[in-house]
């Protein structure tokens, strides 16, 4: 079994964060989303991974993953170029995959239970493909699978008006090499892409059994800022958090807090977990860091009250204001305007930024 990790796409819904890097490298609980995928594949015993690269952020992704040795895996890079759809991405991996089965994992997705059960379910029978499903409240907005009593997929329907089930495809797949023949037969859809659901439908029509695995734990597509915050909450809720950094005698630290070795919580600061504070970060006196916040590396927070937020890193936040439900890009700085006249907020805001003042 091999792994194919999709790391292309423009990240347009995460602008301006993705103006300067790929969406797969946005951190959740101070770890790039893409690393969770590599770890999930490794956990499933998959150590040969093909990483699909698009036009954006190739070098950053290669800088992070390298040849995979830091993660105990072997990585081959596959340059897709134009984003012509998931089936095109899979097709570009044909030579890498060879005659093996493979897991296709969307690199901006994160799921609690990993892919071990999905792989085991696929390997328990003779399937052309296996798909991960999750029950959703709004099946009209998803690709939906109809399944029989044995869990075999009988039909896939894209955003149905009258959905036969509430089981949505969540972007994790296992394929046999038979999928490559199906992809060869595909034509671009109305949106100009080769759709992976069309490839699976062709496998069905060609008589292949398609396995399904219903994911019970949470799953997040981290395509939008609010998704990053929610994924950050979910990961911090589950993650084992250790305090290895320096905590001042007069600092208040409650609940579960991850404090990296070179991070500091100074006297007079209050941190209430679950929180993750990365290397080189300093939480100064008068600062409150509340639940579900991740403070990225080399950031300094002074006087601010912040909660349910992600500070990606290298930020200086020195204000008495309150920051909630926020995603702050690398190197974003926030100071105080209290002593300035005329009164008012002073902003230097990049293209596609979103502010609520």
């Amino acid at each position, binding site marked *: 079994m091999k792994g194919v990790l999709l790391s292309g796409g423009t990240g347009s819904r995460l602008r301006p964060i993705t103006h300067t890097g790929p969406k797969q490298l946005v951190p959740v609980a101070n770890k790039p989303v893409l690393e969770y995928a590599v770890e999930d594949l490794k956990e499933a015993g998959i150590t040969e991974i093909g990483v699909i690269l698009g036009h954006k952020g190739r070098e950053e992704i290669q800088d992070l993953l390298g*040849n995979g040795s830091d993660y105990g895996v072997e990585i*081959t*890079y596959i*340059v*897709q170029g*134009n984003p012509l759809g998931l089936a095109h991405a899979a097709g570009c991996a044909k030579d*890498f995959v060879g005659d093996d089965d493979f897991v296709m994992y969307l690199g901006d997705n994160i799921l609690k239970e990993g892919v071990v059960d999905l792989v085991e379910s696929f390997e328990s029978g003779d399937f052309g493909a296996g798909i991960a499903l999750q029950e959703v409240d709004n099946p009209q907005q998803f690709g939906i699978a109809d399944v029989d009593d044995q869990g075999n997929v009988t039909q896939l329907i894209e955003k149905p008006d009258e959905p036969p089930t509430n089981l949505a495809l969540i972007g994790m797949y296992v394929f046999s090499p038979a999928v490559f023949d199906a992809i*060869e037969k595909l034509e671009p859809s109305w949106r100009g892409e*080769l759709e992976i659901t069309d490839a699976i439908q062709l496998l069905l029509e060609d008589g292949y059994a398609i396995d399904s695995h219903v994911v019970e734990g949470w799953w997040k597509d981290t395509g939008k800022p609010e998704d990053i915050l929610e994924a950050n909450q979910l990961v911090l809720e589950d993650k084992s958090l250790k305090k290895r950094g320096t905590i001042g005698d007069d600092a208040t630290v409650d609940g579960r807090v991850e404090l990296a070795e070179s991070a500091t919580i100074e006297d007079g600061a209050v941190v209430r977990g679950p929180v993750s504070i990365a290397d080189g970060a300093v939480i100064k006196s008068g600062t409150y860091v509340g639940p579900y916040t991740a403070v990225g590396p080399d950031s300094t927070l002074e006087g601010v009250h912040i909660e349910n937020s992600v500070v990606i890193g290298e930020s200086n936040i020195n204000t008495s204001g309150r920051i909630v439900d926020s995603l702050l890009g690398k190197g974003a700085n926030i100071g105080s305007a209290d002593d300035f006249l005329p009164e008012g907020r002073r902003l230097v805001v990049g293209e596609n930024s979103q502010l609520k003042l």
Partner: protein
Amino acid sequence: MHIITHACTQCGTVVSANELESNRVMKCPGLDCENVLRFTDLDESDQEHFLDNKASYEL
């Protein structure tokens, strides 16, 4: 759709035909690889197929 790729002979990095065609000549995007890749590295039949169907390999 016939998906055409080329694997670098030195590092194994795979590059799609649309990427090769748009660059014509490119340094291999593999890690620390100095190999030079060309659209003409593809089989002649693949080159011909790609150029005959170029529109379908674009957005």
